[in-house]
Structure formats: structure tokens, C-alpha cells
């Protein structure tokens, strides 16, 4: 009988209450006894869809070509803030091959971004915002037609700097003001003033982080077409069910007439958590033209309008006792959310949660500016916040003459500082120990002395991370046993490139007692009707994995029941191994398919649901990273020589794909630390580097030696699989560890990211000048 319960679910640092429905029996966690017998779980498993990916058979949204498909391309506003005075699409409509032009003139008024704008708005609030959609037989015709659309803009005053946007007479991005919700988000515990009074030492600093762009290899896009009365959408998305709900609402359709498919995706990183305007435009255009319509963004559009990590200005103040116990933390962040926001941004998560500290106050100001709207980006807020917090921890350690690692251990949180609940598991201490061993932390002063020569300076730095990644309900799965003895796993999740298909196949095969080759995982299609949550917040495997295990256990138990009767072996004596029934009395084996030779097309369907997270405990992931860098004082070159990463995310299902996640997160973090930055011209209100030439992401040449390990610590209380997420953790402490190592090498701290050559040289220059004027000695 289904059971309805209320539970709390964490997503990217925020908690939400949800009602969920539980089915089936509670599963006991895979404990240590079971561990010894694992055939597949915890073993390196190459991706089950590897051959499709490398041969080009894998179908990405960009690969979808349907008979009669039309192309849709978007006209974008070149001004940072403007009102459309006149819009004339008649010339474009008359161009041969053009099938439709959609704009504010003829499109339905569909509210967008929490009603702050519309699908087609006459007020444009950033350079790159959508003005019209041209649909034509060929892509090239679209581009010709875009040039024939006549738009008269009335330019309006604009602001791109969030600090300026908060000034009293700043141009208004929205009539309601430039501060989201009219106030900062404030968190407080204890008594901040008392905390600082108790402090023997106080450190303070202001840090700036840049806006960075996801630059997914596959840009955002959709292909929409109608099959009878059903709208079918191929969407490059992290959330097929979310896109379904959003599009159904926008077009006023019942859910059962919208089907969303996403089989393969070239990256999302948080920027594809919801339907885009392009999705709804494609659907509307397909409706109007009666033809399939593809709308894809190019790199330029992608980097103006498809999301970003907000820039921040963070002021932090830490107080501590002489022994290095934190007494107070104050953290104020100004976050540039761009023209629209669906939720407030925040950089204070790590400040609230990473260390034990009784008195904490944080304020997060989400500020509207005339720039492309922000979106989630791999551990939103935590990457930015960890950079500032861990820099301040290092400053505190220096002031107290303490080893930075020792300071962190002295403030180790044994219970969650917000909820005061214990953790299900916390492998941070183990991560510190192993990481310090791998980087040779104790020997760092010797290495620095030996290897700092001429203009080169060696430095070491470390940083910690805390993240959610518990996953949670609702998530459902089915496991079908086919008459030939193979099995099909059906879930509504999506593999966004992380290896979800492979991990789910391992779990199902393990639970069923089937070989991996006999498992097929069907996902990425709402038509299966089995809901799974969005693939974000490092929650996919920890949400869907337990549901798959439950469904597989259910199918297994049905299979054994039926098998026992068909084979005439007592149920208790029958087991499943490697796709065969085994009679434990005589060891006789018979393949699963033999029972279906008698039963013909009988199909077993196992059902599984993700149960709730524990109520009395916190589920978190942890990790520590250590960087060794070389800085050239003359050329400003920052070279990361080595990055050690040790993370704890519960049980490891697939060591191969988990290592890929660690590498990927670290490399993306290195881009953030060293080179990536969206540059906005404050006088013109435009982004000057929206291309992959001018916006620098790391090349393989920029990747240092990475030593990545997991503290493989099955978390028996988190969920019956003992798994937690790992997608986001490795990016969180990367920039912080690098920045701390660079500060160690330079002997002073640069408070702003990225640590580009020009920034390092500029800082060195200004210090030279200060020294020339007799200032700057002895400071950092």
C-alpha cells in the first residue's frame, strides 16, 4: 500500500519540505557483509554507452533531424537596456523560405522568469535578450531574414556593476528596484557582537570573484514537433520532467500531451535546469507551422543569454581565540544576478556550515543588473564562498602562527552547525589526512626552499569543502525482466554525461544477480512516465540509484517466486547468480530464460521508489584539496604543478566515472581560478568576450598532475545504497586551494579571481610602486 509522508529535501544548500509517496518494503542498506560479495558495484566499469558516444551513434539534441524540419533563429537586442518603439517583421516574412516570424507583435504573452518579463518583451534588459524568432527552411535563410527585421529601440539608462546598481540613483533594471525581494537574505545564529568581543584575533578582507560562463560543448537548444495531438520535444536539458511541466503550462496543454526526450547531452553544469525561451519558441513555432522546428543557440548567444555564475563582492570578518577556535564570522555578499532571477543567489553556504562557530551572521544581496541572467553553475555559491572563507581561514592561521590544516581541524564541525544534527557519515578528517599525505604537506617548507629559484616561487595551499548531495525523493524506477532473460531498467532520470546509465546498470545487475551485459537502461524520456528529479545538486545517483535497487530487488523477488514454481525448487533453496537460477542443494544452474520457455511472454515488472532521507541526521559530502603552484614573479605565470583531491561521497559505485567527475570538476575549477572571466564593458553594457577565443577555458596543456581519490565510506543511513553525490564537490575547493597556494608563494594575497597573468603582474606592479613610496612593507 502506498504510504504518504512529509520529508525535508536539501537542494544546492537550501531545504524544502515535500510530500512523498512510499511503496514497497524498506530495503536494508548494503552493509559490509554484502560488500565482500559485490561483483559489479565498486568495480571500475567502462561506460555502457561508450561505443555509442565514440562512434557518433549517440543522438544529441543537436543531431536531431526530422523530415520537413524547419530552423528557427533568434534576433537579439544589441543594447543593454532598451524599449522597442517599432518592430516591423514584414520584410523578413516576405523573404523566400521564411515560414514564420514570432515576436511581441504576434506571440502569446507568456510570463517568463517569475513574471519579471515575457517570452517576447518590449522592454529588453540586457544585450543579447530575445526580440524575435525567425523560422525558415534553412539556417542561412534565417540569418538573412534576421537582418530584414526592423527594430527601433529607445535606449534606456543601464547599469552592469552590482555595487553601482545598489546606489540610490542607479538606473533601474526593474521598476521594483535592483535588489531582489527588496532586502538581503539574512542568516543569524548566536550573538555576533559577543562573538567578536570574545575573539583574541580578528581578520577581515574583501574578495571579488568574476562571472564565469558554463560553455557547455553542446549549446542550449530544442527540436519540437507534433505527433498528432502530442507535442514532442528533444531538449538539451538536465530535467525532462521540468521541461514538460514548463512547456505544458506555457502552451496550456495537459501533461500527457507533452513528451520530452533527452538521450545524450554535451554538458549542462546547472545551466540546463529548466526549459529555455528557445524551447517554448520551438514549440510555438512547430504549432504554428505544423512542421518540426529546431532552435539552437550559437556560441555567441550561449555566452550572452544561457546563464552564468554570478560575480560577487564578499566581505568577511572572522574572530577566533588564541587557540584558534572560531568565535564569530560575519559574511556579506553582493551577487550580480543579471537581469532576472528565479531564486536568490548566495555565497554564504560554506560560512554557515563548514566550521563549528557559535556566532555567525551572513547577508546575501542579489542585485539585478543589465546583463544576462545568472543560473545555477556547478555548486552555485559554494565555489565563490569557499574561495573567500578559506582565504580568510589561511589569514587567520598565519596570524595565529598555526598550520592552516591544524586550524581547520580545531574548528571541525562534529554536528551540522545549522541544524545541530549529527552527520550520517563525515569523512573529512580522513580526507585531510590522506590529502596531506599525498601532497607531502609536512615537507612543504623544505620543498619551497629547495625549489624557489630565481624569479620562481613555490607555494602550497589547501581548502575544504562541504556540500549536500544527499539526493532524495521523489524518484521512481521500474525493472522489467524480459522473456529472454535480459532486464530493462526504466527511470525518468537523464544522463547528463556523468555516467548515470552505467551506474544504474551496475546497481540493477548487482541487485538482480544478472550480468551487466543483460541490463539495458532506458531514461531521458518522459513517455515512460516514471518520474525522476532534475540532474543537479549532485543528486542523481543518490536519488535514482536507491529506486533502481528497490525495483530490481522487487523484480528479483518476483522472479525467484515464479522460478521456484516453474523449476519446482523450494523458494528458500533458489538464488540468482550471473543471470542463472542456482539450486543451492545441488548447485545446478539454469538460465533465467528457461522459465519463460514455459511461461512465454510473461513479463515481470519490479517497482521501486526512493525513500526519505533520515530525519534526525544531516547528509553531506565532504572533501579536501591541496595545491602546489609555481609563480613566476617576473612574467606573472601561475602554474599549478599538482592538485591533490580527496573526497567523501559515500559508497563508490563506479571508480572510473567518479574519477572522471573529480577530474572534470577540478579542471573546471582551475579555469575559474586561473583564466575564465566574462568581461563586461561598464560604459557600453556589453560582454566583450562571448567567444571561445576570447573567453579562455583550460586546454589540456593547462591541466596539471591531478591525484584524485575517494574516501570510500558507504553511508548506511543516507539511503539503502549508501551513496551520495559527487558532481559538484570537486569544483568547490579548487580555486580556494589554488589561491591559497598562490598567496603562499607570493607572500601576499590577491583578493580577486581569476589569477591571470595580467592580474598577478598588476598586483606586483602596485606593490613595487607602494614600496617605492615607502609603503606596503610588512603587509600582505
Amino acid at each position, binding site marked *: 500500500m502506498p504510504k504518504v509522508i512529509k520529508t525535508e529535501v536539501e537542494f544546492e544548500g537550501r531545504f524544502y519540505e515535500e510530500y512523498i509517496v512510499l511503496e514497497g518494503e524498506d530495503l536494508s542498506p548494503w552493509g559490509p557483509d554484502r560488500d565482500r560479495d559485490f561483483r559489479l558495484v565498486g568495480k571500475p566499469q567502462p561506460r555502457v554507452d561508450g561505443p555509442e558516444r565514440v562512434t557518433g551513434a549517440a543522438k544529441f539534441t543537436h543531431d536531431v533531424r526530422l523530415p520537413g524540419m524547419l530552423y528557427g533563429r533568434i534576433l537579439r537586442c*544589441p543594447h543593454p537596456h532598451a524599449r522597442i518603439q517599432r518592430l516591423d517583421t514584414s520584410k523578413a516574412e516576405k523573404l523566400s523560405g521564411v515560414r514564420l516570424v514570432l515576436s511581441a507583435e504576434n506571440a502569446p504573452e507568456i510570463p517568463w522568469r517569475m513574471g519579471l518579463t515575457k517570452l517576447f518583451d518590449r522592454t529588453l534588459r540586457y*544585450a543579447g535578450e530575445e526580440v524575435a524568432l525567425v523560422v525558415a527552411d534553412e539556417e*542561412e535563410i534565417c*540569418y538573412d531574414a534576421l537582418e530584414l527585421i526592423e527594430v527601433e529601440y529607445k535606449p534606456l539608462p543601464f547599469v552592469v556593476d552590482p555595487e553601482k546598481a545598489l546606489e540610490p540613483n542607479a538606473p533601474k533594471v526593474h521598476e521594483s528596484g535592483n535588489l531582489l525581494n527588496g532586502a538581503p537574505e539574512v542568516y543569524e545564529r548566536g550573538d555576533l557582537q559577543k562573538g567578536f568581543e570574545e575573539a583574541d584575533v580578528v581578520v577581515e578582507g574583501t574578495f571579488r570573484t568574476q562571472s564565469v560562463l558554463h560553455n557547455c560543448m553542446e549549446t542550449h537548444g530544442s527540436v519540437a514537433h507534433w505527433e498528432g495531438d502530442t507535442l514532442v520535444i528533444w531538449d538539451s536539458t538536465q530535467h525532462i520532467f521540468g521541461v514538460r511541466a514548463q512547456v505544458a503550462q506555457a502552451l496550456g496543454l495537459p501533461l500527457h500531451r507533452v513528451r520530452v526526450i533527452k538521450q545524450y547531452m554535451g554538458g549542462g553544469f546547472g545551466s540546463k535546469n529548466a526549459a529555455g525561451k528557445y524551447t517554448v519558441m520551438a514549440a510555438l513555432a512547430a504549432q504554428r507551422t505544423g512542421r518540426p522546428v529546431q532552435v539552437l543557440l550559437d556560441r*555567441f548567444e550561449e555566452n550572452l543569454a544561457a546563464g552564468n555564475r554570478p560575480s560577487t563582492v564578499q566581505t568577511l570578518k572572522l574572530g577566533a581565540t588564541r587557540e584558534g577556535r572560531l568565535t564569530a564570522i560575519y559574511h556579506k555578499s553582493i551577487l550580480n544576478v543579471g537581469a532576472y532571477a528565479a531564486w536568490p543567489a548566495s555565497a554564504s553556504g560554506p560560512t554557515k556550515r563548514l566550521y563549528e562557530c557559535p556566532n555567525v551572521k551572513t547577508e546575501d544581496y542579489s542585485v539585478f543588473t543589465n546583463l544576462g541572467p545568472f543560473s545555477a553553475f556547478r555548486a552555485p555559491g559554494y565555489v565563490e564562498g569557499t574561495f573567500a572563507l578559506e582565504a580568510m581561514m589561511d589569514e587567520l592561521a598565519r596570524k595565529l602562527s598555526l598550520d592552516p590544516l591544524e586550524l581547520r581541524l580545531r574548528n571541525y564541525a562534529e554536528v551540522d552547525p545549522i541544524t545541530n544534527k549529527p552527520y550520517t557519515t563525515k569523512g573529512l578528517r580522513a580526507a585531510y589526512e590522506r590529502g596531506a599525505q599525498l601532497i607531502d604537506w609536512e615537507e612543504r617548507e623544505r620543498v619551497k626552499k629547495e625549489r624557489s629559484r630565481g*624569479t620562481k616561487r613555490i607555494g602550497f595551499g589547501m581548502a575544504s569543502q562541504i556540500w549536500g548531495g544527499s539526493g532524495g525523493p521523489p524518484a521512481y524506477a521500474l525493472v522489467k525482466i524480459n522473456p529472454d532473460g535480459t532486464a530493462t531498467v526504466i527511470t525518468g532520470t537523464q544522463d547528463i554525461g556523468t555516467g548515470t546509465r552505467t551506474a544504474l546498470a551496475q546497481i540493477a545487475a548487482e541487485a538482480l544477480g544478472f550480468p551487466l551485459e543483460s541490463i539495458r537502461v532506458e531514461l531521458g524520456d518522459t513517455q515512460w512516465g516514471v518520474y525522476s528529479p532534475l540532474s543537479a545538486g549532485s543528486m542523481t545517483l543518490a536519488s535514482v540509484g536507491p529506486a533502481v535497487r528497490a525495483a530490481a530487488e522487487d523484480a528479483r523477488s518476483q522472479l525467484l517466486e515464479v522460478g521456484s514454481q516453474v523449476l519446482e525448487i523450494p523458494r528458500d533453496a533458489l538464488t540468482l547468480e550471473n543471470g542463472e537460477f542456482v539450486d543451492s542443494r545441488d548447485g545446478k544452474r539454469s538460465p533465467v530464460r528457461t522459465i519463460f520457455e514455459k511461461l512465454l511472454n510473461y513479463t515481470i515488472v519490479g517497482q521501486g521508489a526512493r525513500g526519505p532521507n533520515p530525519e534526525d541526521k544531516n547528509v553531506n559530502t565532504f572533501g579536501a584539496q591541496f595545491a602546489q603552484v609555481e609563480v613566476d614573479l*617576473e*612574467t*606573472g*605565470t601561475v602554474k599549478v604543478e599538482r592538485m591533490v583531491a580527496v573526497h567523501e561521497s559515500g559508497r563508490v559505485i563506479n571508480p572510473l566515472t567518479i574519477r572522471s567527475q573529480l577530474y572534470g570538476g577540478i579542471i573546471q575549477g582551475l579555469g575559474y581560478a*586561473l*583564466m575564465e572571466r566574462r*568581461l563586461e*564593458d561598464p*560604459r*557600453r553594457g*556589453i560582454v*566583450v*568576450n*562571448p*567567444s571561445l*577565443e*576570447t573567453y*579562455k577555458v*583550460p*586546454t589540456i*596543456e*593547462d591541466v596539471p598532475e591531478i591525484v584524485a581519490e575517494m574516501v570510500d565510506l558507504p553511508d548506511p543511513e543516507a539511503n539503502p545504497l549508501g551513496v551520495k553525490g559527487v558532481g559538484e564537490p570537486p569544483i568547490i575547493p579548487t580555486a580556494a586551494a589554488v589561491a591559497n597556494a598562490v598567496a603562499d608563494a607570493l607572500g601576499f594575497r590577491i583578493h580577486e579571481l581569476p589569477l*591571470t*597573468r*595580467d592580474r598577478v*603582474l*598588476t598586483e*606586483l*606592479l602596485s606593490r613595487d610602486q607602494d614600496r617605492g613610496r615607502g609603503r606596503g612593507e610588512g603587509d600582505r
Partner: protein
Amino acid sequence: MKRFRHADAPDLETAIVLLREEGAEAIAGGTDLLTEMKAGIRAPELLVNLKSLEFKGIRDEGDALAIGALTTLSELEAHPLVKERFPMLAQAASLAATPQLRNVGTVGGNLLQRVRCWYYRHPHVKCWLKGGEECYAEEGLNHRHAIFGTSPCIAVHPSDLAPALIALDAEVRVVGPEVDGWLPLEEIYCLPDENHRERTVLGRGDLLTEVRVPYRGNSRGVFLKAMERAAWSFALVSVAARLDFDGNRVREVRIVLGGVAGKPWRVRDAETLLQGQAPTEELVAKAAEAAVAGARPREHNAYKIPLARSLVRRALLELFELRSRRD
């Protein structure tokens, strides 16, 4: 993209006739032109394909190396004679762009490429160089812009090959109605002004067909490039330096900077300082200082001064150390 015609040039004469047409543009590797066309920065009526011409390959001419303008950067960097005689040139070629781009991009195209200024390349911007009224970078984001030279456009010349070839005293052959004959590579470059919004003296229909690099006796060169990442990045600052020795004294020296001016920037004051001198560290420091003496930084690019100074110093030290090791 605007519709255009495409014609293979059957021979040099026809190519020049075709290129005299209004709206005609030459295309070889196309790594620069095609990106400009896609971004709507250039919209030629006619593309004249030069790849059908014979100016390819690298020849030993006894007293010089002849490099056809259609030689790809990959061919250049891998050629045994280039590696043996002019390692700095092979080095400059290998640091440009990516292997994929170097497989297609040509020597001629590299020398004549257009600037990478992010305002120039931005489809929403009509800057002075694109026929507009003003330079956006002068008061804008000029991190990557010029510290030398006076021009209404402050974009820098992006080529890595050009500084190396100028340091090697390369000459180029230009065939065409406005410029014709051999001239030093250095002399084809100019800073754009109101009457000539171009970076070379070449006119419509003029084609660069060949590069000639003279052999020197006791000569060593070095090319250094500071980038924003380890690969696939135009130079923030580059330096090409070449020294000929007479005994232990400098007989002849060339120091050419890239990434600092609207054209490859030869620093003659620094060269003069070194002329006829025996190398010392103090002399190197003086020369490095002289190399950046006339620099005028803008809001965001003062870092280029110490960077250029360091690269010149390092290049010279490397050359002198090489020399002393050989002795």
C-alpha cells in the same frame, strides 16, 4: 551570412584581376576570413581562392630559405631546414593557434591577418576600424591592447610569425598593381590612420607570394611568448630576438615585440645599446629597460610593460648563455 561568389584563381595574373573587383577578398586557409564572415564583420561579394596557386613549400636557395606564402604553419614548424637554420621561426609557428588551425592556416595569411580586438570582433559593435566613429578600447576594456604607437585604433598585431621573421631580416615578395617587388617584411606594416584604416601598405589586388629568410653565419635567435593559457592564445606579449656575434661582441641584433602595438614593434633603442658590446647582465638589463622606454600604458594594460621587459631580458640572457655554452 551574405551570399558570395567563389572563384579558384587559375594563375597569379588572373587572381590579381579578380581581386581588383569591388568586394573581392582573397582566401587561402580561411581561418581568419571565415570567422569574420560568420560574425558579419566582413561580407565579401567574391572570394578568390588562392590555394590553386603554386606559392607553396619551402626551398633552399643557397643563401636564403624561400617560403611560399601558401605554406601552412604546420609545414613550417616541421620543416627540417627551418628547424635547423631558424629554430626561433619553428618555435614561433608551433606556438601559434592550435594544431588544427596550423594545418590550414598559411604563412601569408598569418602575416596579413586582422586584429583580434574584442570590440572589432564583436558583432554588435561598429568601432573605428570597422568604419565607425570611435575606438571602443581606448576608454574601455583594453587589457590586451597597445602600449606603443599612435593610431585611432589601439588593437595589437596578433601574428607570432611576423616578429620572428622581422628579427630574421625576412623579405617578402609582393605582386600587384599598387605594390610590386621585394621589400623587407617590416616595411609592409603600418599603423592605421584616418586615410588608411589598414595595417599593411598592400592595396587592393596586391598579393604576398613569398617570404625569403637570409642565412646568417654566427647567428642565434629566440622567440618567447606570454599567453593567457598554455596553448591556443594570441600573444599578450611576444619577443623575437636574434644576435650575430663577432668574436664575443654583438655584431648585429634584432629585437622585435609582438602583442604590444598595432604592428610588429622593433625596439631599435635597445638594439643600438647592444651593438658592438660584449654581453653582461647589466647590459641586458639596460637593453630590456630601453625596449619598453617609450611605452604608454592604458587603464588595463600596464602589466605589459614589466612583461615585455622580462621577456626581452630572458631572450637576451638565453642568447648570451647559448653563445657562452657554445664557446
